[in-house]
Every structure is written in structure tokens, then in C-alpha cells.
């Protein structure tokens, strides 16, 4: 399991190598990428801000939850922070497993959960304005 919050560009290759095991027949990978337009606005760049220690803890909880629920071999989650231009990768989720169905399911579920629980925010900067995007996810309050 590998969890990373980093300001450095995200290259998926080391994460693929980290999760692969000799028993793995399948690796499912997701990249979140900055796109050039959102809600009709031309996006110049994004800024991601995180509460790093807490985000790392929450991503680790997501990874453990996924490992418990699906018979996968391993999972890696990396989230980038700071300023990202169009085409740059904000999120990498990689899952390895003996069979392909659970690799896809676990990877997709991990992406959904990350958006819900991780204290990470993005600001969209477009020509003539900018705004923190708030309200896509709302962490659930529950005893831990």
C-alpha cells in the first residue's frame, strides 16, 4: 500500500510497479487530469490545496477499506497539490489483483471515496476570475 500527497508531478509508472505482485493478472489504473473547460468556463489552471497529514490519513483509510472489501493484491493512491496546468495529473489510483473484475471495481470505488472523504480542495482559475470549488463532496461525520 502506498499513499502520497505531493507537490511533484505524478508519474504512474512507479505506482504500477509498486502494486504489481507475481500473483497479479490485472492492473487497473485511474488518472484524474485537469481539463480545459468546466461548466462552460475556459480553465487556465487549477490549484489544489490539502490538509496534508489528514488527507494522507483519510486516503490510507480509503485504501484499507478497499483492501478489506475486495480480494485485491495491493493499491496505491497519490494526490498532487499546488498549481496544475491543463493535462496535468491530479490523482493516480492503481489497483492490482489476480482477476480483472475486482481490479476495476476496487479502483472505481476508491476514486469515488477519495472525492468524498479527503480534505483536499481545488480552485479553478479562469480568465477574469477564480473560485474554490466547494460542494462536490462532503465528508461524512462518523466516529472513528
Amino acid at each position, binding site marked *: 500500500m502506498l499513499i502520497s500527497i505531493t507537490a511533484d508531478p505524478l508519474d504512474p509508472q512507479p505506482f504500477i510497479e509498486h502494486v504489481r505482485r507475481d500473483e497479479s493478472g490485472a492492473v487497473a489504473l485511474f488518472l*484524474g*487530469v*485537469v*481539463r480545459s473547460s*468546466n461548466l462552460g468556463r475556459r*480553465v487556465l489552471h*487549477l490549484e*489544489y*490545496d*490539502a*490538509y496534508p*497529514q*489528514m*488527507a494522507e*490519513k483519510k486516503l490510507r483509510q480509503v485504501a484499507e477499506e478497499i483492501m478489506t472489501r475486495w480480494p485485491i493484491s495491493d493499491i496505491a493512491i497519490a*494526490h498532487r497539490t499546488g498549481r496544475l496546468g491543463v493535462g496535468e495529473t*491530479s*490523482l493516480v489510483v492503481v489497483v492490482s489483483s489476480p482477476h480483472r473484475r475486482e481490479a476495476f471495481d476496487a479502483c472505481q470505488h476508491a*476514486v469515488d471515496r*477519495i*472525492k*468524498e*472523504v*479527503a*480534505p*483536499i*480542495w*481545488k*480552485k479553478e482559475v479562469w480568465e477574469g476570475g477564480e473560485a*474554490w*470549488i*466547494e*460542494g*462536490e*463532496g*462532503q*465528508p461524512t*461525520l*462518523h466516529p*472513528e
Partner: protein
Amino acid sequence: MKATVKFFAAFHDMTGRRELDLEVREGLTVSELYHDLRARFPRLADYGGSLLFTVNAEYVPADHALHDGDEVAFIPPVSGGTHAH
């Protein structure tokens, strides 16, 4: 007693700060602390019920009482992950 408040994202923009060390009274709740801070930083928005609170990097209820040395943060609805909804 002492508490440290961390400001992220919109809170960082609204306060111009990343962190603030405060002297707070015993038994102060996190929502009371937020109310007090709005007097000091008038730009702090009223998020109503959609604002969450953390103490020492765990989500806590609004009526959670602070202890000496606690690290507090305010968590508006998160938007990390991807740019593709």
C-alpha cells in the same frame, strides 16, 4: 490554554494565513471558536451546516470541546480527486 488553527483553501484566502496560535478558554467548542474568529476575520464566510470541523486531524461534531494543545481546522465541502465529476 492554547490551540492552533490551520487555514486551508478558501480559509487561507479569507484570512491570509496558513496557521494561527490562539489562547482560548477551557471548554470552548469548535463552532464557538469559529464564531469568535469571524469577529477577527470578517471575510470568513457563513458556511452554515456544510462546514465541518477537525481536531487533531479527525472530524468532530460542532459542539466538540477543545483541549490544551489541540490543532483545529475548518473543512468546507471538499473537492479533491479529479477535475471530472
